[in-house]
């Protein structure tokens, strides 16, 4: 018998750009799982006029799983600690000036993290290289940038897949932001493989595109953001990566986390989710589903 209890954590995160849900199958025990001990957590963003709506209660939400209404067991707001992964595309297109901007942006972001939050930094070209791990001292960021050079091909999709597949403690919310020009040239994982991975993991992904140009191939980033509860933003003239990064984190942080235990539905397979708020004039964004094997 396996020694772990399997819980399913679905994080439905609603951020300005769209609905998102993260689903995670965690520490597991098949017996307990079969005894209907699975818990699903869903992150939900509720906004009015572009601002978070912070005063909602459990009774304000309605949630269905495969069309079956579910009872929300718990509701939290801005409480769970966050594991933030910042991925920097350092392929040929990134020059020294941009690297310096990125270094400042990451340092600023770190200062704004709550004590319980953690930050990890990953550089991406054809190699996916962790520069700074969670719990590393602040000086590690400057040291990492000092040794960082740009060049080479770009494995953006693969890097995102690594972030999704990385270990995710069940008591922490996972959020990854990548800064990239979006041009993937070398990934072995296809967009469909990446989306499949996203449906089976919990991290939310936001993508900051260095250029406003959007090609049909960039559709994967929108799909991924929708799937995971992140967003896609293009860096506009006059905006800094730091501003954009901070805004994305603020929006992720100011989400509700609903917890429920699925009832009346098959445990395995695809689960379609729908979240509704019983107040008018609000914009509710949540992931559309998750999948359990």
């Amino acid at each position, binding site marked *: 018998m396996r020694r772990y209890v399997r819980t399913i954590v679905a994080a439905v995160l609603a951020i300005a750009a769209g609905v998102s849900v993260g689903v995670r*199958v965690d520490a597991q025990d098949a017996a307990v799982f079969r005894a209907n001990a699975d818990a699903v957590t869903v992150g939900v963003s509720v906004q009015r006029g572009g601002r978070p709506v912070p005063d909602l209660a459990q009774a304000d939400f309605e949630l269905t799983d495969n069309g079956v209404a579910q009872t929300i067991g718990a509701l939290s707001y801005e409480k769970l600690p966050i594991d933030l992964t910042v991925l920097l595309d350092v392929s040929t297109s990134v020059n020294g000036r941009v690297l310096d901007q990125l270094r400042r942006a990451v340092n600023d972001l770190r200062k704004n993290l709550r004590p319980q939050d953690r930050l990890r930094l*990953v550089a991406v070209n*054809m*190699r*996916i*290289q*962790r520069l700074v791990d969670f719990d590393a001292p602040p000086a590690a960021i400057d040291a990492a940038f000092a040794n960082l050079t740009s060049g*080479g*091909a770009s*494995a953006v999709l*693969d890097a995102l*897949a*690594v*972030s*999704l*597949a*990385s*270990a995710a403690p069940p008591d922490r919310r996972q959020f990854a932001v990548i800064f990239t020009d979006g*041009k*993937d*040239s*070398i*990934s*072995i*994982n*296809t*967009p*469909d*493989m*990446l989306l*499949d*991975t996203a449906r*089976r*993991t919990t991290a939310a992904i936001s993508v900051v595109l260095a250029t406003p140009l959007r*090609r*049909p*191939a960039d*559709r*994967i980033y929108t799909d991924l953001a929708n799937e995971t509860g992140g967003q896609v933003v293009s860096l506009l003239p006059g905006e800094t990566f730091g501003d954009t990064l901070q805004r994305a984190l603020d929006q992720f942080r100011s989400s509700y986390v609903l917890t429920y235990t699925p009832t009346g539905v098959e445990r395995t397979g695809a689960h379609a989710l729908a979240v509704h708020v019983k107040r008018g004039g609000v914009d509710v964004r949540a992931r559309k589903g998750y999948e359990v*094997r």
Partner: protein
Amino acid sequence: MTAAVGAGVAAGVCWAAAVWLAAAPQTPTFRSGVDLIPIDVQVVDGDGHPVDGLTLDQFDVTIDGKKRRVVSVDLIDHRTTSAAPSAKTVTTIAGASDSSSIVPPRRIVIMAIDTYSFDAATAVPILASARAFIEKLPADDEVGLFAYPRGIKIDPTTDHDAIVRALGKIVVQRDAPPEGEFQLTPAELVDLSTWTLGRPTPQASQLMDTLCHGDVTCLIRLDAEVTGGLMHDEAMAQMSAGTLSALIRELGKVPLRKTVVLVSGGFVTADVPGARPDNQEAGTQVGKTAAAADVSVYTLFIDPSLRKMISAETRSAPRGVPDVRREGDLYKQWLDEFSGRAGGSLFRVASGDGHFAFDRILSETSAYYLLGVESTPGDRDGRAHEMRVRVRDKRLTVRGRSWILPQKPGPAPAVVEVADRPASAPAAATAAASAAPVVPEIRPLADAFDRDDRTAIAKAMVGSKGEAVIRAFREGGDPWPASPRRRAVFALDLAAAGMRVESIFTKREAARLIAEYALQVRQPQPNDPFECAWLRVATEGLEGLFEPSTGATFIMRAAERCPADPRFALAVGVIRDQQVRLGESALAPVREPAKDIPDGQQRALDALAAAAASPGTRDEAIARTAWLHFRAARYADGLKTIETLTTPAPDPTVRYLVDVIRGQLLRALDRPDEASAAFRAALVAWPRGQAAQLALMTLLVNRGQHDEAAALADQIETASVDDTDPWWLYWVGDYRTYSTARAQLRERMQ
């Protein structure tokens, strides 16, 4: 007589001056109390016959726009039956302290054949006419032969029969890029060049629509064909201009009457402002050099437009009748830039043997006037001065140079010592090349090259300096005059560095340089060891750029030159697949296979199939074929293809690629267990290969095996910087062996 067959261009162009200077023949000498500048002009009637009997008052000479006094007029007439030309003083100005007279010089005529610019069939009658032309020249004319870039070179000689015999042996073959998918006419190439430069004209936009109907992958292939054509035409023109200029400069050292009769098919030069091929400047430089050297250039332009038009009518995608006149003018424009600037003319030969042109040249050059023009103190300042000569009778044509460079007062130019030989005897074509001084920009780079310091060369290309450095190298002397191979390898290093910088101007100049030297290293027969080693390094470098628009045409041409090396055939497959990949990266992912295989994919598949025919490249070609099928969602086809590999590839790199691709195909066909086994096999072939780990990682997530997937994710992110992955170089083909190939080339260069 010595015929130098196949001599390097750099060495070959310098032979003439040395022997002529040593021969110290007669020079036009004024004996006058007035400082005179000698200016020779031909005055012909409408039929090209020299006009005699002109007197002082009928000439009007200006230098830098200011009228000058003509002190003497001498007619040098070769239309005599005697061996020596006659020279008669027609008139002298009153008041000259002594009577002016001239010692009439012999003539030197160089027959220059641009052997890469027109086709063999056209050449046969033309060269027959050239032989007849030589036979009609006066017996005391010194005649030389200069077939370039490659061909017979004979020092000037009065042994005209030797020249005639050599002309019969000259091999001419038009050099053109490989037949392209779109079979572009020169005019279309020029129009479409505006698109590749980012400023498409309405004609270019219309053509793009006609040829590609908005299909992105088609436009990528069109871009490659246009870029390849432009590179080729610019390289040909650069090389031709460089060779001609060097020849003319050397001729300029000879104080005789010099005429170059150039036979050329020309090169396409844009007639639209800002378009390419940008060969005008190269032509202008030849013209200025010719004018300064006092060399008359008569050009027989072998117009290829008629043949091109026939070809255009038979092409698979008819798109209107070509404008034959414009097509011909595009080829001619480059020649127009210099023909006639130094007293010659250009004749268009659309068909036939061109005898009319040779007859005309014979006639026009049979007599000329030598004018003694009074100089001013500023004339001999070492700079070229614009000059114009006119005659009163407007029905007559004056052929004269448009620039003069009067000698500075001082000692005579140095004479290259050559072994004793009679002035009129055949010369030994062994005169040492007089190396031009190396410009300061190039010397340190040449030193860096000698100590194999590529970093220093790369640094020299940074920013906007690269373009100037390459130009300086082209124009600024040869660091290794005795070693053209070394120079060619240096050019390759320079071009390789230049093509990797951001500046589009440096990139373009570097691409021209590499195309130009591909012609320089060419040998008469294919599969030459040095040429193929050079092309191999160039090809691998171009594969590494992942810019198929720059590399496609070049690599296809390299494969034609070196058919014995199957890596070139594979490189064609790689560059074709790069084109497909570029299209994919701009489009949404393919989830369903297309009903028919798109053109671009089929071309890549065909090229890879050709590479799969050779045992040495079979495994890799098949793996690449399978991966192309995978990307097009033809998973079953891909698996069927890769399963033809029944024994593991000996090269671990290829073995790893095969297993990764096999795994991806199995996964797409919903055979996860076999896919997992394939990925694990790949990790045996190449431990810690990132792509295999990544593919396995996401497969594990999808199967619910999160812990192992997380462990792999951790392993990937914390891999040693020494860990490499063949997948990273998948798209750049043989660039993975660039350093090795370059090292081997340097050994051959010795």
